[in-house]
């Protein structure tokens, strides 16, 4: 008998085969599965469920979510410089422009032009930056103020990220009163989610008001980034969070994901708050690790009230690496099973994605579309959201 007819017979048999047959049933038919792996088993990962305490409530003020204003311009820069893996310090983006044009810069040459003006003379620095950088007016930035109310009613503030453009971020800080909070020492620490230009390059704006503030970064910063923290005039403590879970204060922790990100950046930390009686609230910069990954890691690592994923704030990359399976790319279905009670999304989420959330009946907290934020489905610049 030729293999051809045997294949056809097989096909025919498979079409009619009852699926889900156990190996026992197959054995009665004389079918056995030989595999070198047949004894192989994987150890079950246990949910660590680390108890990191609880807080009464958490309020987030969106200082700025508009990282850049024109996507096509940014795209053009990235493409023109050679693609997604090009080191962010060579673009000649603000503030590290050295006047040589796209993709010809370096951290050293760029900082040399403005270092003497940091962090106090930012207006003067920005003039130099505008003259030497690629598309300086396209820069915006991402930053958020986190106010946590402890169980005893004491409130503490943290700053998440410091944006990109000195000019835009200084104005945004002033709009939300962040400048005064920093100057008065009201903010416990600046938490940098990751090294990306739009979250990190505006660091001197924070330093201008609070050079002694504690800075918390995830491991994986490159040497240019570490040098920039020094060159920005930082005089306080620098704390590096290791991959995995890191405590910040009761009810607030960070998880560092060792994820590679475009423009040669590595590692992103997201924040998690356990709101008493409600559940877990996640706060992310971009969520480059992907939203499903982000949530499932939290589930694995953390203990939180009611075992409930309660809320979510920030930029939500949905499934950033996958590119091949249309059928399962439905983020709306993917998110439904977590039963979130309150979602504030913006930044890199995508407006259509946010609109889909709304259509799918998710509890998306709408914004006001002020201060150059583009749509009400985004929790926009100057908008706030409170969990608990």
């Amino acid at each position, binding site marked *: 008998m030729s293999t051809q007819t045997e294949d056809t017979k097989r096909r025919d048999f498979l079409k009619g085969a009852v699926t889900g047959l156990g190996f026992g049933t197959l054995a009665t038919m004389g079918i056995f599965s030989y595999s070198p792996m047949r004894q192989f088993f994987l150890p079950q990962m246990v949910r660590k469920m680390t108890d990191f305490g609880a807080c009464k409530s958490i309020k987030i003020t969106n200082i700025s979510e508009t990282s850049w204003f024109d996507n096509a311009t940014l795209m*053009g820069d990235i493409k023109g410089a050679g693609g*997604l893996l090009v080191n962010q310090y060579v673009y000649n983006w603000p503030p590290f422009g050295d006047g040589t044009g796209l*993709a010809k810069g370096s951290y050293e040459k760029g900082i040399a032009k403005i270092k003497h003006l940091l962090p106090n003379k930012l207006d003067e620095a920005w003039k130099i930056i505008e003259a030497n950088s690629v598309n300086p007016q396209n820069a915006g930035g991402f930053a958020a103020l986190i106010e946590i109310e402890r169980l005893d009613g004491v409130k503490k503030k943290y700053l998440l990220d410091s944006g990109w453009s000195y000019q835009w971020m200084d104005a945004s800080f002033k709009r939300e009163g962040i400048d005064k909070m920093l100057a008065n020492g009201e903010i416990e620490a600046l938490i940098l989610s990751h090294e990306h230009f739009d979250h990190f390059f505006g660091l001197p704006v924070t330093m201008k008001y609070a050079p002694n503030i504690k800075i918390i970064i995830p491991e994986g910063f490159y040497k240019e980034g570490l040098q920039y923290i020094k060159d920005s005039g930082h005089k306080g403590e620098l704390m590096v969070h290791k991959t995995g879970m890191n405590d910040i204060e009761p009810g607030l922790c960070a998880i560092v994901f060792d994820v590679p990100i475009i423009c040669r950046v590595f590692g992103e930390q997201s924040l998690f708050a356990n709101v008493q009686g409600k559940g877990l609230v996640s706060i992310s910069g971009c969520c480059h690790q992907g939203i499903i990954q982000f949530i499932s890691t939290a589930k694995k690592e953390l203990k939180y009230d009611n075992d409930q994923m309660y809320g979510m704030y920030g930029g939500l990359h949905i499934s950033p690496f996958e590119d*091949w399976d249309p059928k399962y790319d439905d983020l709306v279905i993917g998110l439904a099973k977590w039963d979130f009670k309150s979602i504030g999304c913006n930044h890199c989420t995508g*407006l259509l994605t946010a609109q889909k959330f709304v259509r799918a009946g998710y509890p998306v907290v709408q914004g006001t579309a002020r201060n150059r934020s583009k749509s009400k489905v985004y929790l926009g610049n100057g908008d706030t959201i409170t969990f608990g």
Partner: protein
Amino acid sequence: MNIQALYPATFDGTPESFNALLRTLLIRGTYDTVLKKITGYKGMYLYQQSKECWTVKFDNFAGIFGILFAELHEDVGVFHLYYFPSPNESMLDKFSLAEAITAQDEAYLEKVREFALHPALFRQFHIATLRLHVSIQNQSLWLFYETHIRERVYAKEGVIDPRSEEKSYLIEPEGLDKDLPSFRLLLPLMNFLNTAITRMSLCTPSYFKLFKASKASVAYDSIGNFSDVKDGASAKILIALGYGEGDFIELTERALVGHHAEVVHEAMSLNCFLQKAPWYDISDDIKQLSTHTVVQNKPKLIVVTGFLGSGKTNFLQNYIEYETEKNRFVGIIQNEIGKTGLDGKLLDYTYSLVELDEGCVCCSLAGQLRMGVNTLMRTIAPDTIILETTGVANPFNLLAELHELEDIVDFEVIVTVVDGVNALYLYDEFRVFKDQIRSADVILLNKIDQMSESQIDSVKVMLEQNNRCAKIIPTVQCDIHPNLLHNSIVASTSQIASLISEEEKNPETKSTHVQDGISSIKIPLSKPLNREKFRDYLEKLPKNIFRLKGIIAFEAEDNQYVVQYVNGVFEFVEQQSEQCTETFLVYIGKNIEKSFVQNPCSL
């Protein structure tokens, strides 16, 4: 080599570090368009809930590849590599019957994404093992792949079809239950991993050895006793690779214990082939390996047609957002002045948009398009260019001219958006609407949320009558995943490599699974054709031409015709008299070359 270039965080030799290193490689690979192009890598899915595993996909393979970390053995991380065949592909027949039955499970593809949870998946479908050793002290990396040229399992007493009343065998006694070309399946994955390491570390392997080891095949009897069977075809292939300066010889010797391995000499064709691989061959411009090189890949061109109000703008918006999420860039060309398809306020992104002058569409479209494409490439160099037509131009004219742009774009697909609610009315009223349907590769039957089942059915019938070869996809607000539009098939070097190796070992086996390149050529027609002779010509077209489109004129007839030919079936559609253009034919088929196609003018 610099290990930090591969994994910038701390590598401490724990299972989690090994996981993280390989995961990082897979993720960074998704950002590298050149790497994707040379290795056919389509991206990965990360499953990391109660257990961790990754699934990845490559061009030309219908199935899904899987990787998981299995164990730490001494200081070597051991990964299992899998291939989960698509339930429809012919490769499934090469897997064992038990595996093939597993693949019939309705939830099979869903389970594959989290295969680490399912013993029936991770204990079967195995194609290779990868051992990894990292030395931080030496800054060196050692990889060792172990696979079969063919993995064979025999059913000693055969397998009887349980449905048969007479004794009918599914597998004849002493027949092959499994005959898997594991090495061929490993190749794309190995090629990707090695090339990714080479590109990211800017370092080529300092150590490379290829071994083969004889390996008995396995046979089972009717009660499930397994025994060894001597079988020349089922040899193992072992590939050792070192980056940097490490104890590679010792590591390799350790890994070879228990195998009767012999070195495959460098002169052997397989060895030669692998040494030309992108991860090994440094004679190729090293700059090509640098991530700093500006890569001017040809963008894909997608043509979108559709009547006014059909939902083209929705299509564009969805497409752009999907692509942006994947860090890919889209440029748009519109051929009508003043129509703002993309409203900056409505959409997150203001997109690079080039508008063509409507008045010139018919006469010099190709020239206009070339200018538009060049403008976009100068400004944002998009990965995809979408040409949004407004239905003014005859899509068939467009198709003809698009082939003149082959040097600057890869023509991907014509998408026609159809307003389902008004389709039957538009069909009766507008010639251009019919042409849009007829020219499509993919038809989006949009607005199905506003249609009844019977309406949908009748529109589908109309669409199928007018275009037998288009893929029809029902949509609401044109929300469709871009990958559903793609249907390209290209031959890959990895498959060629596997054929060399299999044929070397196994001269009696001829693979029937080669996917040859599909291409198209355009032939201009210098004069009207004889209707009868041309019919005859079409009826005798060689089988490797499966599609033909074009505009033709017949002797002694004023009007021109659109000809559509699909797998032996063809039709001529008469054009209105004012639509007189140059005549041409476009042939689409397998391995076609101009010299093989007879110009019908010479009939």
